[in-house]
């Protein structure tokens, strides 16, 4: 309880710090929302008028304070450019990216756990070497290339799956799943290959632990000992990496969103930066930072679930 309170406080402070840093960064960005909106049709007068309408002519600190106060009430503000409330829009996009990242993570785990465990268990055998060679090769493929190849094979050639796009879950669950298969695969394959290296080394080091020998001395079979005693202990280092990889996954998701034309958070962020839609950028970044921090918190909590030694701290 105490832990959660403390962590949540850190989280909130972190999120506000992040948003403030972003705000300051944006202050030095060349170009502004009014200029972008007016494009090649801008006159200095029109830019000034539009800036006033947007509210971007006010001092930066005022803008930030307004935004931060709004946020405290759960209000992300209204987009300068589109006059839409930002909260629902970001939430919408976040949902999409969340599915993508979660699916990617699932694929990654489905690949990494068996591959890592098996290649550790067989680390002296040719099959083990083959598995780790495969995972090495998997890491070396850029995610977008993997995505393009998947599209070519499954969408263009076989026509079995859509080449891109997104259908909301609420609209049509079947289509939703069909549209997520390839993106999640291309996100998960590469991450999975990387993750399997960590699983492998965690399992390898766990295998050397004395309690594994104790388990087998009790009469547990090799695999039973590995599963019952090895894996829970290997989980702690793997969890750490999972938490760290989330950041990588979010970046990967942006590329994959691009390849598969998925209207996710990454796309929104790119767009918001291009439009210089200050508040929208703020909203996206805040959500991203909070997401990463929440995952950190979750890993912390999970550590404690997995490893009783950490509970008493």
């Amino acid at each position, binding site marked *: 309880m105490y832990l959660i309170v403390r962590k949540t406080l850190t989280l909130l402070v972190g999120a506000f710090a992040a948003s403030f840093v972003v705000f300051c960064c944006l202050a030095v960005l060349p170009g502004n929302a009014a200029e*972008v909106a007016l494009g090649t049709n*801008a006159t200095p007068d029109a830019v000034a008028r539009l800036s006033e309408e947007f509210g971007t002519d006010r001092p930066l600190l005022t803008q930030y304070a307004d935004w931060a106060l709004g946020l405290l009430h759960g209000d992300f503000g209204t987009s300068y450019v589109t006059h839409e409330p930002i909260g629902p829009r970001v939430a919408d996009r976040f949902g999409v990216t969340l599915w993508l990242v979660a699916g990617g993570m699932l694929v990654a785990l489905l690949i990494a756990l068996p591959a890592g465990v098996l290649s550790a268990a067989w680390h002296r055998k040719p099959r083990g070497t083959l598995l780790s060679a495969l995972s090495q090769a998997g890491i070396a493929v850029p995610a977008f290339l993997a995505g393009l190849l998947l599209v070519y094979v499954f969408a263009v050639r076989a026509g079995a799956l859509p080449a891109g796009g997104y259908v909301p879950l609420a609209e049509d669950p079947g289509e939703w799943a*069909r549209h997520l298969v390839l993106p999640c695969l291309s996100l998960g394959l590469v991450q999975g290959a990387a993750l399997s290296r960590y699983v492998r080394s965690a399992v390898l080091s766990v295998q050397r632990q004395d309690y594994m020998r104790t388990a087998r001395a009790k009469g547990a079979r090799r695999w039973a000992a590995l599963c019952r005693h090895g894996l829970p202990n290997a989980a702690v280092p793997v969890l750490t990496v999972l938490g760290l990889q989330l950041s990588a996954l979010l970046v990967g998701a942006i590329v994959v969103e691009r390849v598969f*034309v998925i209207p996710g958070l990454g796309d929104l962020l790119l767009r918001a930066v291009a439009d210089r839609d200050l508040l929208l950028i703020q909203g996206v970044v805040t959500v991203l930072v909070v997401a990463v921090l929440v995952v950190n918190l979750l890993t912390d909590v999970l550590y404690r679930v997995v490893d009783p030694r950490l509970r008493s701290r």
Partner: protein
Amino acid sequence: GSGSGRQSGDALTVGLVAEPATLDFSGTDGAAIPQALLGNVYEGLVRVDQQGRIQPQLAEKYERSADGLTYTFHLRKNVKFTNGAPFTADDAVFSIDQVKTRWKLKVAQQMAVVDKAVKVNADTVAVTLKHPSNNWLYAMTSRIGAMYSRTGVGDLKNHPVGTGPFTVGSWQRGDKLILRRNADYWGVKPQLNQVSLKYFKDAGALNNAMLAGDVNVVGAVQAPETLSRFADKSRFQVIDGSSTAEVVLSMNNSRKPFIDKRVRQAVRYGIDHEALLKTARFGRGTLIGSQEAPTDPWYAGDSNRVPYDPAKAKQLVKDAGAEGTVLKMRIPNLPYAVSAAQIVKDQLAQVGLKADIEPLEFPARWLSEVFNKADYDLSIIAHSEPRDQWIFADPSYYFRYDKPAYADLLKQADAGPPQEESDRYRAALRMLSQDAAADWLYLMPNLMVADAKLQGLPVNQVGEGLEFAGVRWSGK
């Protein structure tokens, strides 16, 4: 989804690359909004046809007074806005006044020539100009001529209201804009009951979607080298029309070395435009020599082009003492500009000019630094608006081309008798070319890939809208 994408009776899915930020072209610039809405959702009093001629639309007919100062528009009856309100002379007057008073965009200045628009009766509007202008009527075919409902301008950014054959069904930002058939349309009702405009960030992804059957039309092929993927005639048709988008290699006329006409000419002689079109665009596109397109009435064919003559270019550079000048080539980070820039850099190097490519984030940074502040030597961008030769007449435009004689010619062409318009424009454009105000790399093709069974897609991009009213699935 793919279900909606595949041919399903009366629906059409069109893949496009640039998504509009809002649906309000009165306050937001860019080609994407009129492309989606003009002619589909909004209509004007007049429109431009595939050959570039002006035709009546919401005005059944119109008259020009002998002095050229007054246009009288006789409006169609029984036209309704999609919000149910009837289209009347009041709406027309309102729309014209709005442009004059409320629009912030520079295009709205074309309405400045209007002295007043008055309702003659419920179906007739008279517009009086301050001075005769040939261009004004043409401008009325563009977005500034769009007719708004007086009661339908509450939320233009998200809910446009027009008289067109389609209405905005839904808009999933970042994904697609869905147009639905306007059941109460005054004219011939479109066969399609739904058009989805699906926006792709990535041209490759768009091609894949086309190949996978997720979209029926690639609205704009970005990379012509990919056309070979659509060679199967039984599935695909390639539409290669003309557009009004001149890819201009702009030179900053107000700065050294381009303040010297010889250097500007050297650039024009030093670039092998054929090779450029071949390598950068796989030969798709039209070579032009001035700010003109084949659909312009004054189009002069190849006569404004300059031959590739590196020796002469080198000599000109030498004469101007500009050898080895380092040029800032600040281009938008758009694929066609990046491709072309690499070739331009390579070719200029051979005539003694060194260009450093600096891709700038588009639109924000390019607009801010190149377009608004003119902090550049060379740049490359497509100017897609039709009949936009006026941009060279404005000395504050980022070309910083300041030639009163050219501006005068344009003024005369605009204000003079319509039958002399073309000749005067031709002369002006010739002057532009000879003066090497810029270099015209090529005219973008209007390149589309469509399902082989689709008919009625507009071949040329003449006006600002991509109109779907006439599109049909064959065999229906």
